[in-house]
């Protein structure tokens, strides 16, 4: 059990993150529908955020917030999870939202003007 637990602690979050990243990329690369591509992009963003938070965690990590009961620094060594990548993820999530909102608006306008959501048909007549 011990070895499995250590393996899981080291790898499960990374495997999860990379799986989500891979699936998101797969959706973006193989689907014709624009909305599916944007969904793929959204899933890639979640995968990346999970990866960035995964590297900030270690098994005996503690929430990086000072509270009455929560001791972040134990005899001179920081035991909390790494707050810096978490702050980066905060920003990355909101950027993901911004990009998705803009992508959706463009998708809606494309549907309005091109009349189709198929990415292969969004092109100008080849003169």
């Amino acid at each position: 059990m011990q070895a499995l637990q250590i393996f899981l602690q080291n790898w499960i979050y990374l495997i999860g993150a990379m799986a989500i990243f891979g699936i998101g990329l797969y959706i973006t690369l193989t689907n014709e529908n624009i909305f599916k591509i944007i969904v793929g992009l959204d899933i890639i963003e979640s995968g990346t955020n999970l990866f960035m938070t995964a590297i900030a965690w270690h098994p005996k990590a503690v929430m990086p917030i000072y509270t009455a009961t929560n001791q972040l620094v134990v005899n001179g060594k920081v035991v909390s999870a790494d707050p810096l990548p978490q702050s980066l993820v905060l920003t990355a999530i909101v950027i993901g939202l911004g990009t998705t909102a803009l992508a959706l608006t463009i998708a809606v306008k494309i549907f309005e003007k091109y009349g189709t959501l198929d990415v292969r048909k969004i092109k100008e007549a080849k003169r």
Partner: protein
Amino acid sequence: MNSNIIWLVFTPLIGSAIAAILYRVKFLDRLVTFSTFAITLLLLFSVHVGQSYTFNLNFMGKIIPLSWNVTHLSIFMLYISVAFGTLLTFYSLMDKSRMKGFLLLLILAANNWIFTTNDMVGFFFAWELMGWASIVSVLGGRDENSSRHAALYYAMMSIAGSYSMFFGVFTLWKLTGSLSISTNVAYLSSIVGMHPWWVLGIVSLFFVTFMIKAGIFPFHTWVPMAYAYAPDTFTPFLSGVMSKYGIYGMLLFLPISLMEKGMPAAFGLPWVNYIFMWIGVTTAVVGTVLAFFQDDVKKLFAYSSFSNLGYIVAAISLFSSVGVTAGIYHAFNHLLFKGALFITLAAVISRTGTSKMSEMGGLWRKMPVTFFTFFIGIASAAGIPPFNGFGSKWLIYQAMIKQHLPFATVMLFLASTGAFMYLFKAFHSVFLGQRSARYDNVKEVPVVGQIVEYLLMFAMIFFGVQPGYILKPIGAIVSSMGLKPLPTMANGYVTGMFSNVYVPLISWSLAISFTVGFILFFISAKHKYVSQSDNYTAGQIPEEWNLTPETYQFSWKFYEPIEGIFAPFFRIKIDGFFRGLANWTAATSSAIKEIFVSNAQIYAFFAVAGLIIFVIAGWVA
């Protein structure tokens, strides 16, 4: 440190700026062009051999010295180009062709800079400036589509040429660390012994550029189109002066022309010179043969001009004292008589409105002065003694025979007889023969043009009779190149190696016999004016011959039988290679355009695929 050298470059630049501003008023623009040429000519008198000037340019993060110095060769070239330019712009004062003055002045600035510069940066800068200015001025020709096509063809060749010089300049800069021409040429000749192939590589980079500009054999295909479709008053400058830049470039690099022991000799010449001589000879022959069958008179003279270039190259590549003197002398003569021919043609075309020989004919009564200039131009181009063409051709043959190259000399003889044939065809079909009704009200060139034509006639005869005045400066050039200059006794003599010719005696005898014949012609012959249509067929015009006024003009298919002889050679198209390259580029471009398939997903695929390739490269490396 003579700052006048710099003024040689700046006055044309300032003049071209003024001309560009005054572009709206046609006459003012031409006046400014002419006056700038004249001022530059005056400035030239204050510049002497041996003076130099350096200007420090803060470029590429360090101080690059741009240096000018004046050698015998540059003074000679400057004088003939600026003098001819002044003459041309004086002529174009009254000419209405769409020649943009400020572009010609830009070319003049580049011209002065090329001839006097001693550093590669300046040389390349001026070369490119002259390149693009001439490309844009070729654009302004009479017939839109073909002048655009010609300009683009010329642009491609000259830009490709300047890029090969780009390479040469920087390989030299890497080797010697200095950008000045003299040090580099000295360095090249110092290491020619050790590894000749390396030197051959670099020099051929430069020689490709010069051959393109001069229109020598493999790169001559742009010449007929560019000369024919350029504006009429620009062609004289294009063919007379600009082709000499190539020759000047070759003369710069010639002193290291592998004369040293490094190279195996063939027929007493290093094999590179031997090949180069053969290239010159083939250019001469190709030019002559192709010139036979042209109907457009400007194209005909375009072919003839690059065949004369072939003569010059053949002479220079011998690199013997006679050869180089003959080459430079022929360059000067070619500038003179080709310039005269093109100026008279400009006059004829501006009067008749067409450049097709089959549509011209019998103009000599209407334009006598132009007729005489044209006649003297034709005669000197063919090399008839009293006129200036004779001396240089004679010297070229002297040089060839002295170098024991019998076969090449025979080819050159063939080329010059061919030259006489197409020159006569042009002369006869433009001026002699029957004049069609269309040109009844054709008037002579206005006074300004006539003055220019008289000057040209006088120059051709003077340098024909007294070649000494030209041979003395050429001698100085040849001795500055380390060869023994030709002994020129009195001004009249042209001395080859074996025999010398007292030219004035010959010319006087010819003049006398010519005038006697002329008088007899006037006294005896009862000639009456015969209209064009009734001389061929004695009155009737049989229907089955379906003759049209054009076909009356006997210059129509003048050399048809000869064309038959040379027909098999026409299948190998010289510019097939370049046309093939152009088609290949167009094909690849439409193939590559397919990559941008305007589908967002495929672009994402490309991005990820590119990333994967580099990840794999990361593992492999």
